[in-house]
């Protein structure tokens, strides 16, 4: 590849924009996956707590 070729800026920009957009998309998807997993764990813990407490109450 010849980096001194004319219009090389356009080639680099299009690869850059691809990396930025796909990277942002992936990061957004990862972040969402992480926050959903975290909230699920939280809810699970709360649910377990609640069950334990109600179990003690009836015991």
């Amino acid at each position, binding site marked *: *590849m*010849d980096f001194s*070729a*004319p*219009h*090389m800026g*356009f*080639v680099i*920009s*299009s*690869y850059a*924009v*691809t990396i930025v*957009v*796909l990277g942002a*998309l*992936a990061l*957004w*998807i*990862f972040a*969402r*996956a992480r926050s*959903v*997993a975290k*909230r*699920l764990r939280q*809810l699970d813990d709360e*649910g377990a707590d609640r069950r334990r407490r109600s179990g003690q109450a009836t015991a």
Partner: protein
Amino acid sequence: MSSIERFANPTRFMRLQATVQPWVWMITLALFAVGLFLGLARAPADYQQGETVRIMYVHVPAAWSALMVYTVMAVASIIGIVFRHPLADIAAKAAAPIGAAFCFLALATGSLWGKPMWGTWWVWDARLTSMFVLLLLYLGYIAIWQAIDDPRRASRIAAIVAIVGFINVPIVKFSVDWWYSLHQPASVFRTDGPTIHPSILTPLLIMGLAYSFLFLALHLISIRSEIGARRIRQTELARTGALQ
């Protein structure tokens, strides 16, 4: 409760996804490595367009994938509406932002390619125009999901939007081609067709495959998140209901 039954299948999906995910990522990365190597280091520069032709390796696969993802979305919507399968609705919803990103990339790189070729950032060329309409279809679909609160209702309405849009895509393509050929008979340049040289075609196809696998990888994670989000919603609703 009925939700256990409803998520029986999603649970199976979660297990499958966890096993498959690392392999999909490996294949994706390998395809990108090979495709970029062949496209950037091995393939020759075009005798007419010079190095600019290399934009093709990110532009064309993005356009292909945008169309493919819309097809996936429409098929999932049909399955969702006919068989009332919640996983299909979720799959359709999860595909949309990824497809929209591909579509946006096709437009952005197309415009970056157009500037040196045509001297302007935007041309109402048949291909770019169809892509633009496809982006609008994606945005409309995403907006419907945003606008409707109840996921079951949203999935129905969004499915109708996706299916009608899917019927619309070939009609738009046909009409835009007609319109463009009438206003400007000769195509400025061609990126596909039988004249393409194998040294260019091979990396192009590999990049196309790489994009498809990237979609698969991201789609699987998104579906997983969406299933989780629905569980959260349901649990929270049940708990606030119990607190009343």
